[in-house]
């Protein structure tokens, strides 16, 4: 079963996304990241797309929701490891206008 996995590094949370990022695989991300925010005082999230080969607008919804949350806390969201098709979706959605890819 493909799932989102998390790695904490200082106050940064690395969100490792699965091969398929859709409504089904994104279901738990909000609650799970909220727990890290509470317990580890997270102020930066890095979404790691290096395993991702499919994404739909559910992934965009997660990014926007987590971006708003991080901004509330004075933090930020970064992206990493996007392949060309993920990049295309992020570009169409305007995500790169507010989030940086590292």
């Amino acid at each position, binding site marked *: 079963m493909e799932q989102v996995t998390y790695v904490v590094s200082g106050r940064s949370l690395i969100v490792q996304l699965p091969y398929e990022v859709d*409504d089904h695989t994104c279901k738990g991300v909000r609650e799970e990241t909220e727990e890290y925010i509470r317990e580890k005082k997270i102020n930066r999230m890095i979404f790691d797309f290096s395993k991702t080969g499919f994404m*739909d*607008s559910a992934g965009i919804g*997660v990014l926007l929701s987590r971006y708003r949350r991080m901004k509330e806390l004075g933090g930020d969201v970064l992206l990493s490891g996007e392949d060309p098709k993920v990049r295309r979706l992020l570009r*169409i959605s*305007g995500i790169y206008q507010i989030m940086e890819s590292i």
Partner: protein
Amino acid sequence: MEVKQCGWPVVSGEQKMELYLESDSQNESFARVVVAAFMARLDPTLEETDDVKTAVSEAVTNAIIHGYADKKGIVRICGRIAGSTLFVEVEDWGCGIPDIAKAMEPMYSGMGQERSGMGFCFMEAFMDELTVISEPEKGTTVRMIKNIRRESGKEQVDCAWTASGN
């Protein structure tokens, strides 16, 4: 048993498939893989296959989370191939959409902050034609057309909120 028509005029020599799924979010990936396999006979580019998979995923997800609002229901997917054109219809018998124009606005989401509101915009961006038919309490039908291996001449759709003035 005859495969139901997909709402488009019948073309001679066309190929059809029909799939009925339970409204379970695990079926979202199943649905898009089936449609991708169905269209493989058109020898699409990888990008065309990805476009259709994303559009089907959006339509099926909408049927499950909006149409049935996580209640149990049936989602019907009908595919047709005529020449080098792929037709996909996704139908549900859920709550329907009271205001289709509003639902199709970029960034509109009936489900609050956790959804991007970009589902219809992605369907529009990745397919050549999109039609939505809906009636409250009756259900919703989404019809999409994609021409494979042909220049669509379509401009790139922009789903960003900055472009929609939000």
